[in-house]
């Protein structure tokens, strides 16, 4: 690792530690990271949308025309319409002309809603129903190769998925009172939902923990070990500057911690006095 790359890694480590410092409280390091990411993320997505969205969808389609004729001589001049509509969106900030932005907004909403009706019905409702109502595997009802209740592809699991999904849907049906058989099915539905929520929650927690471990590994493997050259294959480019950068960042955080501790002591003393 050369010194330039180490400086970038140190910046990443500084921002990582700064973000983690929010666990203590909102502080200057966290604020720096928070404000920086707002600008960088906005700029990043603007550039990605420009190069991957606007250029291929608009500019490359109009490029056989002449810009001084507003590309009206292009082979696909109709693509000027969304561009004009897009510009009309910018009237949003004018009090007098903001109504103009409703036209492109209406077009956007209309097209999106029109696309959503059949597509969502197909993908989220019909296909989910097809996958839920499969033919029951009677030959392996209690599991493949004998009695195995934890077999997720057994006939019993297929029945449980169908009954569970239908019961959960019935739980969300509030046009009929949840009493009698209907109420019993709805109660089973909420059990299924609770088990599902628990499993999803546990899965999410584990994903976050993995991410947390990954950040700690980054700090240790990529930053601390490179700063002190304790990596498996010693870095030939290593110099004392690596450690110096490390200590500058650490002094910033330790200095802030000491300042906070002194402030805390002062507060406690003033309260007791």
């Amino acid at each position: 690792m050369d010194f330039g790359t180490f400086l970038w890694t140190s910046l990443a480590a500084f921002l990582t530690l700064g973000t983690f410092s929010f666990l203590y409280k909102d502080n200057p390091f966290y604020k720096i990271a928070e404000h920086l990411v707002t600008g960088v993320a906005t700029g990043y997505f603007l550039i990605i949308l420009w190069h991957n969205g606007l250029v291929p969808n608009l500019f490359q389609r109009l490029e056989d025309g002449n810009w001084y004729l507003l590309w009206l001589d292009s082979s696909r001049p109709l693509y000027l319409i969304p561009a004009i509509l897009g510009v009309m969106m910018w009237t949003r900030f004018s009090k007098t002309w903001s109504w103009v932005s409703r036209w492109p907004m209406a077009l956007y909403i209309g097209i999106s809603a029109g696309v959503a009706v059949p597509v969502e019905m197909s993908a989220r409702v019909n296909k989910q129903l097809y996958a839920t109502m499969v033919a029951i595997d009677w030959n392996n009802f209690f599991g493949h190769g004998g009695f195995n209740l934890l077999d997720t592809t057994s006939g019993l699991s297929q029945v449980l998925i169908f009954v569970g999904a239908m019961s959960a849907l019935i739980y969300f049906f509030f046009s009929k009172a949840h009493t009698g058989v209907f109420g019993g099915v709805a109660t089973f539905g909420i059990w299924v939902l609770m088990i599902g929520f628990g499993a999803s929650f546990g899965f999410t927690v584990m994903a976050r923990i993995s991410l947390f471990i990954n950040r700690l590994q980054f700090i240790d493997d990529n930053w601390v070990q490179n700063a002190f050259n304790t990596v498996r294959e010693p870095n030939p480019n290593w110099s004392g500057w690596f450690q110096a950068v490390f200590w500058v960042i650490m002094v910033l955080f330790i200095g802030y911690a000491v300042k906070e501790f002194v402030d805390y002591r002062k507060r406690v003393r003033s309260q007791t006095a």
Partner: protein
Amino acid sequence: MKRQIPLMLVLVFGMFLIFQYFIPHETSEKAYEFLLDWITIIGIFAMALAIWSLFRVTVAKVRTRKENWGYSIFTLVGLFSMMIFGWTAPNGEGWGWYFIFVLSVLMAIGMLVQTMSVKSGRGLWAGLMFVFLIIAVLIGIFDNAWSFHFMSAEPLENPMFRSFFDFVLMPILATTFSLLAFFIASAAYRAFRARNLLATLLLVSALIVMLRFNPYLTPIFGDYMARTSNWLMNVPNLAAQRAIVMGVGLGIVATALKVILGIERGYMGKG
């Protein structure tokens, strides 16, 4: 005209796209793709609105010297740096005057904000802005080590653009998400007390999934913990998720129909 035309547009385009789905013809497919391109383009123009909004809010914070206004400078630097790196790229190995150019543009923007912020001595800041702007323009014209690329995707390979993504954006986003591990744990402590059957079901299934990879439990439970966790994820969880997805799907369809038929008009705002 202010309200009727938008309602008509939503109705006409919405109904057209619903019926278009059931017409398996080349022209129908082309119309579908054409209109999808339209909303992509309109959406990107709307993104400019969002960026302008961010710029306005950030500059207003600096101008009025609101509390913590100094941090807004990081937002502006991050935003404009990414924009410069995303539209420029080095032509070879060397960088030439590239970084002086970037610094000049950022300084010019800083001076512009300062000109808007101060009540007296605007001339000085405006003058400095023009100096930095002229430096940037001269470097842009005469430096051949790098060039602007508005129509090709070369800047996406710009080492500075990639470094900002790898060493600024990704670490902060990944760390922010990993922070949720702590907040989610404190939320779980409050939500997971086994006060009744439903809370107990939630607690037990979450614990089984969380303890799945715990190496200390493997000698006691063997692979049962992993298999039970797998079953929980693929049977009850799948059933619950399917019910939710179907509910969400029906909700989206109902809302879309309300919008198309003009019952839901929130998108038009007031006036």
